[in-house]
């Protein structure tokens, strides 16, 4: 029996399923085999009262309100691991998990830590709750100029979208400076938006706040339309995901490249500049939003291998099986909540994997990662010598200038 869409007898489970059908490949949820692979592969599956497989079971049993009453869904770090392994190819992360967070948010079931990040994004345009006027402060007094669109130039070949963490977080500002140095070495004609740039909003979207995402996207769209440029360069894979897969539907459509792709395209020019040899055994951590979400696995590795003295090794989880740092889908702002529920951090596990393959450097390519992994490494005695570096930092270190 099918229940008509406007029927007053439609249960919450039924209207929730119907809302999934409206999403790309959302109807695939019908084909769930209840195999449980999603819940098994999920890094926090053991700490969830309702991992994806059980959520689907509650939908089928018409008791989805059980899920709504628990905080289980907030353990989801939108890492795409479940969607990757699902034999029925159900896009669980983008459909079931994100929609469930949206409903929880509407119902007011929101962890306080997450609320703070969302409120900051709403008011200040960045999750860190900093003054937008200070967004380009990190560019002051640099050896390598970072031109500000509007102030220093009206047009540029490349518009670099720096992101919240790259602009404000002291650790990630170091990565931004490294990127600026590499761009300067390559003679790239680029500019940044500075105070006009807002959070890309993608992680807020995946934490269930779609309206906020749209507001932030509209602000970015408005800022971008003021200038002429040929392509967008992003340092944050989450911003990449926003520009590549979400913004076009909102009328904001530009060619976008993650910096690892951008630099690999220029490898012939870059390679001769990388002269300072290092002695590094590097394990590369695939960020979820480069890897599983966007299939970018090779460029970061190519870039690492272009650095003299780098020996690249793979950890036990790599490429499609990479282990999330815990920061996706709002996890970045719910460390306390996650710890309370799971009594574990995925980052500790990851650091041990890097040590197991005797790496002395853990290379990353996402701004969520250096502080997360460095915090974890500080808590593991054997990791005292392990360096956590963004690939951009390793490239900049190898520049001979």
């Amino acid at each position: 029996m099918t229940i008509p869409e406007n029927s007053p007898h439609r249960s919450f489970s039924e209207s929730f399923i119907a809302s999934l059908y409206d999403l790309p490949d959302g109807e695939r949820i019908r084909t769930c085999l209840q195999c449980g692979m999603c819940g098994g592969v999920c890094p926090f599956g053991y700490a969830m009262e309702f991992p994806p497989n059980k959520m689907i079971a509650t939908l089928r049993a018409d008791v989805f309100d059980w899920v709504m009453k628990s905080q289980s869904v907030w353990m989801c770090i939108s890492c795409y691991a479940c969607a990757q392994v699902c034999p029925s190819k159900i896009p669980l992360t983008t459909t079931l998990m994100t929609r469930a967070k949206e409903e929880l948010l509407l119902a007011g079931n929101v962890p306080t830590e997450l609320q703070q990040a969302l409120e900051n994004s709403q008011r200040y345009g960045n999750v860190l709750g900093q003054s937008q006027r200070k967004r380009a402060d990190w560019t002051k007094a640099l050896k390598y100029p970072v031109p500000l669109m509007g102030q220093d130039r009206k047009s540029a070949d490349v518009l670099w979208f720096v992101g919240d963490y790259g602009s404000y977080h002291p650790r990630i500002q170091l990565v931004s400076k490294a990127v600026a140095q590499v761009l300067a070495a390559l003679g790239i004609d680029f500019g940044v938006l500075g105070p006009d740039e807002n959070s890309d909003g993608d992680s807020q979207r995946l934490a269930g706040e779609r309206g906020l995402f749209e507001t932030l996207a509209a602000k970015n769209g408005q800022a971008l339309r003021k200038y002429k440029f040929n392509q967008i360069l992003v340092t944050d894979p989450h911003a990449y995901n926003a520009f590549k897969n979400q913004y076009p539907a909102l009328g904001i459509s530009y060619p976008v490249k993650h910096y690892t792709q951008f630099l690999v395209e220029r490898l012939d020019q870059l390679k001769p500049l990388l002269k300072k040899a290092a002695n590094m055994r590097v394990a590369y951590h695939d960020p979820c939003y480069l890897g599983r979400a966007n299939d970018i696995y090779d460029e970061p590795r190519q870039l690492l291998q272009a650095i003299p003295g780098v020996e690249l090794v793979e950890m036990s989880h790599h490429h499609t099986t990479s282990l999330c740092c815990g920061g996706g889908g709002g996890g970045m702002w719910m460390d306390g909540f996650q710890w309370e529920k799971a009594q574990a951090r995925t980052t500790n596990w990851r650091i041990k994997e890097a040590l197991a393959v005797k790496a002395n450097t853990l290379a990353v390519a996402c701004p969520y990662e250096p502080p997360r992994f460095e915090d974890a490494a500080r808590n593991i005695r054997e990791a005292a010598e392990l360096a956590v570096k963004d690939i951009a930092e390793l490239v900049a270190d190898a520049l001979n200038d």
Partner: protein
Amino acid sequence: MDIAVVVKLVPDLVEELAIDESGAALDTSYLRLIVNELDNHAVEQAILLKESAGGQVTVIAPDLEGVDDILFTAAAKGADRLIKLTGAMSGVNNYALSNSLAAIIREIKPHLVLTGVQANNDLDGSVGPRLAALLGMAYVGYVSGVTPANDSVKVRKEYSGGLVAQVAVRLPAVLGIQAAGKPPRYVPISKIRQMSKTARIKDQPAGDLDAGNGAAVKHMFKPEMGTHATMIEGEADEVADRLIAIFKEQDIL
């Protein structure tokens, strides 16, 4: 229980404050206003009371930059009526503001008036006590939690030294809220947007804004940096030894 909530907008301290050319006021060109945090708790407390005891919640705020958003957010949380106090609201002092508010509140005849116990731009006392005096109502300040009883409320009040009191307050009364019973809830942007289309804000002229003979700012300046910090240089072990010695000298250890 019908409740009126008074909300003030105050300078947002995330933005750097600058002093204008007169040397006696903030430079408004960079100033951004934000809802006074404790007033936000007052709104939350009012909604919590409405949820447990029913009634109407009216939120009143002066017409300043960003006020519509604040009122629509309150509506999305559950406020029933929104009133914007219009007039020359920039720089209005609490004396004048309380006079206008009292006139409106007399008309609304609420059982309870809630407002934040203080605001970062209070110069001439806070709004609550003066409102209570004008309305002839009881006032209790520094309240952190309110529960309804018949024709009274029970309020939780914290004192220094870790003492907590429960006070029965006969209605009508004015309460200065320090914290709501629960932290203010999050409202998704979609709900605020929806409210901005459906909820109505009533403009109410503030009337005569008599500032009284209250305090006037003559000179505004940034506090001077203290010079009491001592930087201890050297190897970690030396620094630690020195720190321990200092702690002992100061009787901290």
